[in-house]
């Protein structure tokens, strides 16, 4: 190792320090660019994939005619062999147990599980 590196003068040590800090920033800045570009590519490819999946997916099927839809079935909530009153009770119990208002919960399907 040269004497200049082994025992650097004060000005050259200051220069080394400034240069070192600049190198760290330079390296991190380049890395930042790489990470941002990578992120943008990923986000756009995810969006494309999501759009392609949405386009390829068949239109949502109507409720099968042969499935029994109980009276009171509304919107997306499907009731299978469940009386609307029982369904309302189930929903109220779930809301109570979760300590959440009923209008913040989303029920998609209620089906009676029968003993075999």
């Amino acid at each position, binding site marked *: *190792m040269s004497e200049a*590196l*082994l025992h*650097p003068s004060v000005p050259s*040590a200051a220069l080394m*320090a400034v240069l*070192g800090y600049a190198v760290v920033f330079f390296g991190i800045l*380049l890395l930042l660019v790489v*990470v941002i570009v*990578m992120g943008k590519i990923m986000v756009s490819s995810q969006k494309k994939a999501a759009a392609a999946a949405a386009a390829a997916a068949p239109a949502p099927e109507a409720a099968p005619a042969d499935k029994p839809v109980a009276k009171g079935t509304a919107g997306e909530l499907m009731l299978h062999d469940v009386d609307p009153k029982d369904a309302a009770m189930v929903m109220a119990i779930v809301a109570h147990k979760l300590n959440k208002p009923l209008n913040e919960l989303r029920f998609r399907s209620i089906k009676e599980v029968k003993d075999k």
Partner: protein
Amino acid sequence: MNILETLGRLASESGFAGFLAAGGWKNLIMIAIACGLLYLGIVKKFEPLLLVGIAFGCLLTNLPGSGLYHLDMWDAYVAGTPYITAAGEVIEHLTFTTVMHEGGLLDVFYIGVKAGVYPSIIFMGVGAMTDFGPLLANPKSLLLGAAAQLGVFVAFFGAILLGFSGPQAASIGIIGGADGPTAIFLTTKLAPELLGPIAIAAYSYMALIPLIQPPIMKFMTTPAMRVVKMEQTREVSKTEKIIFPIVVSAFVILLLPSTAPLIGCLMLGNLFRECGVTDRLSDTVQNALMNIVTIMLATSVGATMVAERFLSADTIKIVILGLVAFAISTTGGLIGGRIMYRVSGGKINPLIGSAGVSAVPMAARVAQDVGRKYNKTNFLLMHAMGPNVAGVIGSAIAAGYLLSVFG
């Protein structure tokens, strides 16, 4: 057989007699220091996983006659000069093989430090434990990891002013990176004679981060800045997390090849974690391997705290410079945070800048605690993890720069 003569010889050859020999009192002081460090590790819980091992290594190496670690052997190894064994045999060129033949147990352990194996494996464990998601969600936080390396270079300059050589100053400066394995890695390469005090300073100050940082954070920010609530960051996909370690390894190592052992291992550990098919390896690296290496690293680093080397004015200077480095690194990160606060129109809480010093996840936790103190509804932890892990990369780059200049 003369019993008295035998007993006399046993007494004169015992370690107790070593305390009465020239300079033996220094060993007693070092044993007291080892006990003090054990107290800090066990009772005060200052980085106990490392400090207990370091303190015990210090205790063992300073017991006269233990022969577990040979300072003169490693000095000869570094200088490339002949080494004379206890049996009087002259070894012209010491190698790791001859160290294994002639050295004590802690000499053998120390080979892993000298070869840079232990710090790299610990980095692998750190990588396996680190979630780079917050950094990927908010890549700008990388800049805070760079800003917080300020203390490294200020302490380097300060060490030169205090009369240390260039390589020694570089090793002292890296304490400001707040990254123990990086400090050990660089010091072993550049100034192995200072390994003991530098390791002690680095780990002690890392443990003291909750005490060192908050006053600086308060001083460097206004109340209005401290209460800023940051928005939820975007969700990062699994694919991004898998690609990240591969890209960073290739990019940073190409930029600064001397960072290869640290960055390579850090990112390999992270890839084990994220790729989803190497859970067993990730678990091993995070737990079993890291624990084994920590034992060997800590005891062998402690063994370098030999009285004749440790008890010097240089140690006091290193302890002071280490504190300065930590404080200035925190300040650098906070300055970066303030700049980002201005540029973002007040959307970034500058407190997260303090997490730009590595010390994962302690520094991020401190940012969270200080933020919550001023705004009870503020959760800065995930936002602070970005600069925190960026600090690991930043300190590795700083070490790489210093190694390429002085190595």
